């Protein structure tokens, strides 16, 4: 399987995504510069974390207009796997490939710590190998991670099984304390209606080695490798 990591000016998490996939999963991976116009030859795309364009204006607001994003949109429309973490999640929402938006943290401060997230559905390529209800330990590092979507859309997301990860305590219970940024309904990650595009604020690509504090991230990144026939609703 060949992973592509889209890199924008100011992306930082590209290096970690490359390391995680190469060293953690031992799969083929290559960077894709934002000025390219094709993603041919890649089986899965990663939109990494970082500060594309310095997070100026809004996180991901400028990156979404990069030349590569047309190809990414086509790739997504074709039902292929796309995973955006942190800034990548922001870029996907700004580009309209995922519902909702990410706002400044409730605390108004950047927050870096390990959190627990519960996997809500296994219908996405990045969770198909994980039992729903499983609690994963992942690091967050963001100042703008508060997920927001209007009430009608929230109902739709629930009805269509589009909420992929929620912040919980270590036992999988949703609490206010477990919510690091004020996200609506403790939502840590969502997918599109088709289920092939996933975005989340935590960093699976920084949790690929026990030495770093945990390797639960490999469950998410590696899930896409599973040859698994899925019914797309």
């Amino acid at each position, binding site marked *: 399987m060949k992973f592509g990591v889209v890199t924008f000016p100011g992306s930082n998490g590209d290096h970690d995504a490359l390391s995680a996939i190469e060293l953690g999963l031992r799969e083929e991976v290559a960077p894709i510069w934002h000025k390219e116009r094709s993603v041919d030859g890649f089986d899965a795309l990663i939109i990494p974390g970082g500060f594309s364009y310095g997070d100026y*204006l*809004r996180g991901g*607001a*400028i990156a979404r*207009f990069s030349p590569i994003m047309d190809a990414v949109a086509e790739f997504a429309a074709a039902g292929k796997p796309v995973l955006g973490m942190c800034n990548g999640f922001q870029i996907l*929402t*700004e580009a309209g490939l995922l519902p*909702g*938006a990410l*706002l*400044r943290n*409730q*605390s*108004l401060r950047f927050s870096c710590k390990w959190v627990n997230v519960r996997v809500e559905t296994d219908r996405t390529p990045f969770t198909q190998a994980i039992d729903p209800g499983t609690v994963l330990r992942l690091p967050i590092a963001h100042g703008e991670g508060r997920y*927001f*979507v*209007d009430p009608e859309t929230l109902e739709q997301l629930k009805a269509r099984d589009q909420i992929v990860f929620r912040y919980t305590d270590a036992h999988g219970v949703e609490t206010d304390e477990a919510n690091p940024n*004020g996200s609506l309904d403790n939502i840590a990650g969502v997918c599109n209606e088709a289920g092939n595009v996933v975005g989340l604020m935590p960093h699976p690509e920084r949790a690929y080695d026990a030495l770093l504090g945990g390797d639960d991230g490999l469950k998410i990144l590696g899930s896409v490798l599973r040859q698994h026939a899925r019914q797309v609703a």
Partner: protein
Amino acid sequence: MADGKLFHAEVYVSLKRLVNDPEGIEIRNGLHNLGYDEVEDVRSGKYFQLKLRASSRDEAIARVNEMAERLLSNTVIEEFHVQVRDSADVS
């Protein structure tokens, strides 16, 4: 680089009413701490000043509105307000 007259546009972007604005709340608290108890509510936002060329004021307004919709604001969570003046009116 475009031709036309010079216009000055101001774009005000703020969070939609429906969205919680903790920054606005903090600012209101700060004002209260300074003794300005009369302040009931604060909404925070962004302000952009654009200097642009257009063939007419209407064209300038239309273009800036487009810019605000496409880039300067995120219409999922923000709303905007545009004001355009031609250069001669700006002191």
